[in-house]
């Protein structure tokens, strides 16, 4: 099983720094192992090539969310619920996912060593 390499604190990728929670979809990390999460992220990026950068994904994920460490995870969790409520969902490899958590997977996959 691959190990999850998302750090707990702020994570840097090139010039871009973001909080680890941004690349850790809470519900999915209790369901999938790291490899699956990265694979789903890859699938997402393939489907939306315009979002295939850390900058773009962090920008999308932090829209309207507090960047500071406390509260980000909760904000993302409620945004995921809201996605499901409003139909902002997509199907990746059969999984019915919220757009937000799919983006988190994509960000997670970008953080994996090649």
């Amino acid at each position, binding site marked *: 099983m691959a190990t999850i390499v998302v750090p707990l604190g702020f994570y840097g990728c090139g010039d871009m720094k973001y909080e680890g929670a941004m690349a850790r979809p809470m519900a999915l990390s209790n369901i999938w192992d790291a490899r699956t999460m990265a694979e789903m992220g890859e699938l997402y990026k393939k489907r939306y090539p315009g979002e295939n950068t850390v900058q773009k994904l962090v920008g999308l994920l932090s829209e309207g969310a507090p960047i500071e460490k406390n509260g980000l995870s909760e904000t993302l969790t409620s945004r995921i619920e809201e996605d499901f*409520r409003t139909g902002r*969902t997509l199907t990746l490899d*059969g999984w*019915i996912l919220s757009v937000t958590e799919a983006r988190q997977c994509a960000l997670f996959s970008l953080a994996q060593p090649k």
Partner: protein
Amino acid sequence: MHIDARILKDNALIEGDICIIGAGTAGISIALDWIGTRHKVILLEGGGFEYDDRVQDLYSGETTGQKYYPLKSTRLHYFGGTTGHWAGMCSPYDPIDFIERDWVPESGWPISREDLDPFYARAHETLQLGPYNYDFNYWKFQLPHLVPFPLDKKVIWNKMWQFSTARFNDLYGDAITGARNVHLYTYANVVDIIANENLGEIKEVLVRNHTGKTYRARAKRFILACGAIQNARLLLASNSQLPQGLGNTHDLVGRYFMEHLEHASAELWLSRPFPTNLYSWGRGTLASAELAITEQAQTENRILNGTVSLFPLALGRGLQSEMDVWNNEDPRKSAERFWKVISDARAAAKKVTEGRISRAFQLHTRIEQAPNPNSRVTLSSEKDALGVPKTKLHWELTDLDKNSIRRIYQLLGQQMGIAGLGRVRLNEFLRDEKDMSWPSDLNAGWHHMGTTRMNDDPKKGVVNADCQVHGLSNLYVAGSGCYATSGAPNPTLTLVALSLRLSDFVKGKI
């Protein structure tokens, strides 16, 4: 009283007030209801009290279209009928199942759920079920640990089930044979139904068995209770007076054959454990639930009525498609293999107690099939050993069936996400919205419905709201062949209720 028809003289005449053809679930339910009345009831059963392969072989036939079980093994041809093999799962049809839905072609029964309610209560006694109460709150009060998923009640509800262990052969053999006014004839296969000269009522039925002898049975009223496929076959095969068969002026007999589509269609992975007994059942379970789609959500999404049941994924992955397992012509061998596959899978699943998979479930669809005139029973050119044309079944599904299954899981996936419970994964065949094909492992519930559908307009139905065959004043059909739509739950509780309603009606006529 019991008479083995094989000992009767050739051309013997059997006479009574009512004649019930078929001593299976429907036929026995009705016969029991007449015990102790002053009427002479003739109960004609094609088989004996035990399995007999020569009789069972009379059920052989061919199937085309969507893959189906061998016709010989989908029913049992002896006293007690298919209760000898059924799993006993019971739940009533929902009010929406009876009404006309503009998105379901040919939907709508001429009776309502309310009309059936008193008979459902009586059917509970016949099937030895618990109280006629399917309210979740009632059962939550009765049984510990029925914790429901916290899902939006406007979309998903908990449809309760009860479980019968009634096998009519053992259960009612003594009651029927001991009843003085019920004359049960075994080895009495009806092979032809003869109308009177003006073709407005039934005069007699011809009865045969493997001895080569033929008998006649006469009564004031006849009730056909041989199961949905066989009832249609008999009406079609009774074509000595009318080439299209009896009750078939509008070419409806045998059409609209429906099954319940049962299939492992998706997976549910919970993000944390959710201890509950509500969604599982096994030996001794009194009540459990399936996740059902509300009437409101069905209407908004224009989909069929369906439910989802949960199997631990470790178990589900060890199961094989029933369509592949139940493939022996001999129903006993099919059943044996079926239960072996389940017990092997259970044993293997017991070993899986840890890890994420212990919180994962295979999601099984149970859904009505949309009425489709091309899904039908016809006659083969081949004849059985008693000279009756064999059955040909063409099972055909529609896009509405598939779209409904897909939408059900999309709704469930959405609701699981909103509740933060977990995620749903669709199986391959549901992923592409444009894909209307069916997987080869699609199962059916061995539930035969709709071949003599009910409608008060003779141009739209074979029987009227009283289950009387249009144009034949003394011929009635008992059973799930009368269903206009197939509902989501297994059919037998409803068919017993409908049979008891018919029984009351015929009592009023005699």
